[in-house]
């Protein structure tokens, strides 16, 4: 059943990858039965620990690897066909280029491979080099480029032919905060232009800031997918309480309910894991004569959520939220 709707940029169905490293080595599972849908015009974050299968997925989508099971489509075209790659631009992790080419020559080369004519290539090269601040180095051999410059050029070549879908593998890796900000802005601009961005990343802060939807992968399996807002429930993960009027040695009974408690000389602080426990501790200490000074609940951040879903093994099923 092929979804030929142009609303879906990427669709994967039962995608699986099993590696056979060698004759006498055990087979390794890269991906297990992945189902995925990336709506067109969105920024989609693809998260997972090292070795979760993010790069494997991306390589399958971009034709660099062949899935051992399942299928995938890009704008309704099967990824096994080379036409599927007409509508994508891809930036690999830590991109490498031909050392002896200059930025200009490299963009021209990739433009030719994408089927652009000379006029368009020239115009687009100027645009991109300007946009990514590489004009000053346009005639410099890429062997002399810094990591940040390479990363930016990688992004530029992915966007050369204005593809409807841009796939980025760890676009922010190794960049300083300024660099990361530039990349984030570039991604946002792509969405503003109506282009879809699918990228994998470790830097959850950036993902939280710009992604519309995320998918979390763990050991080759999808464990969560959906808009960030709905994945990050308003669930309180921790409450921080502060009291005065508690002796320095603390309060043994309430300490049993706390994850952590300490006296800083002026106030007695207690951290509990939920609101119910917070109420109990507050009641206990107040009945002992303490005065509540503050109660601050912490909601789960994306990072905490990520750690939670990827660390939970055994019976915990995947968490989904679709809208």
């Amino acid at each position: 059943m092929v979804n030929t709707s142009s609303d879906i940029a990427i669709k994967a169905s039962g995608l699986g990858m099993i590696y056979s490293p060698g004759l006498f080595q055990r087979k390794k599972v890269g991906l297990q039965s992945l189902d995925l849908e990336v709506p067109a015009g969105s920024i989609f974050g693809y998260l997972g620990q090292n070795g979760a299968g993010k790069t494997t997925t991306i390589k399958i989508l971009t034709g660099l690897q062949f899935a051992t099971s399942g299928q995938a489509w890009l704008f309704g075209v099967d990824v096994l066909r080379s036409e599927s790659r007409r509508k994508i631009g891809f930036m690999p992790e830590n991109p490498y280029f031909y050392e002896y080419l200059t930025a200009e020559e490299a963009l021209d080369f990739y433009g030719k491979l994408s089927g652009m004519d000379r006029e368009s290539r020239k115009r687009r090269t100027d645009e991109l080099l300007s946009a990514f601040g590489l004009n000053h180095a346009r005639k410099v051999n890429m062997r002399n480029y810094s990591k940040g410059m390479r990363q930016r050029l990688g992004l530029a070549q992915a966007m050369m032919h204005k593809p409807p879908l841009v796939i980025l593998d760890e676009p922010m890796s190794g960049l300083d905060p300024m660099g990361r900000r530039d990349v984030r802005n570039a991604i946002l601009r792509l969405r503003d232009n109506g282009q879809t961005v699918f990228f994998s990343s470790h830097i959850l802060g950036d993902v939280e800031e710009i992604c519309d939807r995320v998918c979390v992968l763990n050991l080759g399996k999808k464990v969560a997918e959906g808009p960030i807002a709905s994945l990050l429930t308003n669930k309180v993960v921790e409450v921080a309480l502060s009291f005065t009027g508690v002796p320095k040695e603390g309060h043994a009974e309430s300490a049993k309910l706390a994850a952590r408690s300490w006296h800083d000389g002026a106030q007695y602080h207690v951290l509990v894991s939920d609101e119910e426990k917070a109420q109990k501790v507050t009641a206990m200490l107040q009945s002992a004569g303490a005065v509540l000074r503050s109660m601050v609940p912490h909601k789960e951040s994306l990072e905490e959520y990520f750690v939670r879903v990827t660390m939970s093994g055994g019976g915990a099923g995947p968490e989904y939220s679709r809208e």
Partner: protein
Amino acid sequence: MIIFTIALNTFREAVRDKILYVLLAFGGLLIVGSKAIGYVSFGQEYKIMADMGLAAIWMFSGMVSIFVGTGLIYKEIDKRTIYTILSKPAQRWQFLLGKYLGLALTTLVNMLVLSTAFLAYLWLSGGLVTVALLEALLMIFFEMLVVTAIAIFFSSASTPILSAIFTTIIFFFGQLTKWIVDLAGTLQASAATDEARERYRVIGGWLYKVYLLLPNLHTFNIRQEAVHAEPGVWIGAHELWYGTLWGLAYTAAVLLAAQLIFSRRNF
């Protein structure tokens, strides 16, 4: 367009490879040095210069095809420059063919440089530049086209070291495959009994079948005839045409085999 783009890029990359210049320099040295050997040859100077020049061009062009060719695909994979190419609408066979053509172009340029130096040196030294010598050089080029295809085949399947070893073995062995067929004949002729003779005849038949599948690079070796040919005399046109067509067919077969491996390779 894609094939041409990749080919040109490959050519640019290859001419920046230092090994190319080292090999060119050695080839040039050998050509120039041949005159010194010619001096002590008791009047056979031009023949020896021609022999050494042709052999040097053959050997060093072969080394270029092997050492640059076997590293070609591997480098792309190792350096991951292949990712940004194969993720474009470029099909894998286009990539492979582009690589091959780029290397063929490099070989052509390399051979042109060495050949020009050789022929000019020979002529300036008083030797004759005959049409047969040009034919021999052309045949060397066709041989290199086959060797390059074999190098690309191994390069798409294996590491540069192993690829270089295998390709070099084939390059050397391909000069002597006729020996296999001759061997059968020799065994047959020296057989003591009728039974043995018949056995060798059957073996000979099978050996010949094996021979037909091997890269019989000696087909392109007309250097000996070229050195002795009179000016204006073309060497056996018929055999050369058949040999060239064999080379083209064999190259196509090898490249297609490379594509078989390459098309399903995971990067």
